[in-house]
């Protein structure tokens, strides 16, 4: 009797001490019923007294919560460390558990550690569980991990739509049950870029819902409001009345209810003060709500995503500008030139967002044709401007005097008028059905390729743009039908091989000699193949080559007719 009194006093003292702890403490008996909970545990479980708790069914105690582990796997009563201990398992691992209050949607993270209480014979009598609330620390850690994964993901693609789809995919189910990405255009229209849910079948529902959405965004609510204000929107609790109010018809309402939207947050994708789109996060079947902390975190994700979108957009715009600029510096197509069969090769070096300094052009003056190929020093927009100047100076000059050396002299004069030293190499060829004349300014001499082999033709002249003593000797090039003139820029001969050696004129000549009677297109193929085999890694310089096969007289016999005559002769 006395012993029992002492024990009661001891228990009471212990209870007072336990009640003062911030951590929740429970004791579970062998029948899995909770027989004790300190004040913190009672608060957490929502009971007024230990007596009421004792009467509760242990299974029912978990009912109000959606409980999962870190990976989202469901946790049942049997998985709890205390229950494992009572089942006879030694030293169960502490359990990190996420529990979402099904009614409030509130998410919390707890760390459960259980210790066995044994009787005098060493049999397990009960299990004490200490429940530490680690919500803040866990959310913070998971957010940091998430941001670092997002960071890697955003850096991995230059396709911004793909980037945004990846973000949406990563957000579910960790951040939300649904994640959608929309981009806005300048007229207030919007484009749905991505919608993600962890379960595929749910996506069809989203597709059907999309069909109900108006073309124009309503500036007072939802996406339209975010677009107008540039501020995030949080609907932490969506009551059924809201759905009824938003539904267009019965079917729409049925769909909305089926999604079971619990909470929604919409955060802007902003570049400076411009809102380019929005991320929408929706919680439904998980029952989770969103709070201000979630919004803040979503905004961090959005700001990273917006930056990635902007840089990929800028990059592709830059590439497009470079391509446009580059193609404006080359003829759109090789023209049909009577008496000649022509092919060309153009490969800018390096980044697609850069403009190269090589160019070629064909144009007609007074029934004769002119071809120019050249190389301005430098790269980028400066080189493009210079190329433009050279190309149009040549075309304009040829209207007055179409002799190649006069055209080079005009280009030289135009370049000299520029304030900074602007140099250019160029080869100018004037040709007709009768043959060709050419002048060269600091440019590699062209090769004449035919059945007799390969040889340089023409005479060197002065680099254009800066020199006092100049000369551009004009040379008439003798060509017989079937011979091909190959004019190239130094990117071809300066290409670097595996041993650091340059490709050089000799390798170029040997390559062409091997297929010397082939048509221009076949010569081109051969040259590209040989260069690619030789060149190690990326091409360092721009490469331009023009192949011009002389077909010659008579004037009214084109290439097609020649081959038909040949076919008839064989038959």
């Amino acid at each position: 009797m006395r012993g029992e009194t002492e024990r009661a006093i001891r228990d009471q003292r212990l209870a007072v001490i336990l009640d003062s702890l911030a951590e929740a403490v429970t004791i579970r008996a062998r029948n899995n019923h909770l027989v004790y909970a300190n004040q913190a545990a009672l608060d957490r479980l929502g009971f007024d007294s230990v007596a009421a708790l004792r009467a509760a069914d242990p299974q029912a105690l978990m009912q109000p919560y959606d409980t999962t582990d870190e990976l989202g796997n469901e946790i049942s009563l049997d998985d709890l460390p205390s229950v494992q201990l009572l089942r006879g398992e030694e030293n169960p691992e502490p359990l990190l558990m996420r529990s979402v209050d099904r009614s409030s949607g509130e998410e919390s993270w707890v760390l459960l550690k259980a210790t066995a209480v044994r009787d005098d014979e060493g049999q397990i009598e009960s299990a004490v569980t200490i429940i530490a609330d680690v919500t803040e620390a866990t959310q913070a850690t998971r957010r940091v991990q998430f941001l670092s994964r997002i960071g890697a993901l955003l850096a991995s693609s230059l396709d911004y739509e793909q980037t945004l789809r990846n973000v949406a995919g990563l957000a579910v189910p960790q951040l939300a049950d649904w994640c959608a990405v929309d981009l806005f255009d300048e007229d207030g229209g919007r484009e749905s870029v991505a919608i993600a849910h962890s379960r595929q079948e749910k996506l069809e529902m989203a597709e059907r819902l999309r069909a109900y959405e108006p073309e124009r965004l309503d500036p007072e609510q939802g996406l339209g409001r975010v677009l107008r204000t540039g501020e995030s929107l949080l609907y932490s609790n969506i009551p059924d009345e809201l759905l009824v109010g938003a539904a267009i018809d019965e079917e729409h309402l049925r769909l909305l209810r089926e999604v079971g939207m619990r909470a929604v947050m919409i955060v802007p994708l902003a570049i400076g003060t411009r809102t380019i789109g929005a991320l929408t996060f929706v919680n439904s079947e998980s029952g989770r709500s969103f709070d201000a902390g979630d919004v803040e975190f979503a905004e961090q994700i959005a700001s990273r995503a917006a930056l990635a979108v902007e840089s990929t957009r800028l990059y592709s715009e830059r590439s497009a500008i470079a391509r446009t600029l580059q193609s404006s510096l080359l003829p759109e197509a090789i023209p049909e030139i009577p008496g000649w069969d022509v092919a060309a090769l153009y490969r800018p070096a390096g980044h697609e967002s850069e403009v190269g300094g090589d160019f070629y052009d064909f144009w007609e003056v007074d029934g004769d044709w002119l071809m120019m190929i050249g190389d301005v020093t430098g790269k980028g927009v400066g080189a493009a401007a210079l190329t433009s100047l050279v190309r149009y100076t040549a075309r304009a000059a040829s209207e007055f005097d179409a002799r190649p050396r006069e055209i080079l002299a005009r280009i030289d004069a135009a370049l000299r008028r520029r304030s900074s030293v602007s140099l250019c190499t160029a080869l100018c060829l004037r040709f007709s059905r009768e043959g060709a004349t050419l002048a060269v300014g600091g440019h590699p001499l062209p090769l004449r390729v035919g059945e007799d082999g390969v040889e340089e033709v023409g005479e060197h002249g002065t680099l254009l743009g800066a020199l006092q003593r100049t000369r551009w000797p004009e040379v008439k090039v003798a060509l017989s039908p079937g011979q091909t003139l190959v004019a190239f820029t130094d990117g071809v001969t300066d290409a670097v091989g595996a041993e650091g050696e340059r490709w050089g004129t000799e390798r170029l000549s040997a390559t062409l000699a091997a297929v010397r009677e082939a048509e221009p297109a076949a010569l081109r193929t051969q040259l590209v193949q040989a260069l690619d085999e030789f060149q190690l890694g990326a091409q360092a310089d721009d490469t331009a080559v023009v192949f011009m096969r002389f077909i010659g007289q008579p004037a009214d016999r084109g290439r097609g007719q020649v081959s038909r005559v040949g076919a008839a002769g064989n038959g």
Partner: protein
Amino acid sequence: MTVPDTPFEIESVLDADTGCLKLSGELDLASVSRVEQAVDAALAQGARTLTLDLSELSFVDSSGLRLFVVLNDRAIAEGWKLTMTRPLEQAMAVFVVSGLEENLPFAEQRRTVA
């Protein structure tokens, strides 16, 4: 990227008012700014006569050619004297065919031991 087996190098020898920059290896877009810096440094230290010794230069591209044209213009405009010695044969060919040989202050002969 390919590394040419003759990397570009600059060796500077500066006396009271003369400087000599020996350029060896392959001169291209990537190495042009190094030459410009070396020239600026030599002029900043008071050199009034600058010799570019190209006797070990094996390759020069169009940006290299532009550099020599720019330096020649600068020397005339700023009133210092530029001389150049001829590069190795394959690089010299580029100066010859581009007409730069007759427009740049090359010393008449390659220096010979005599």
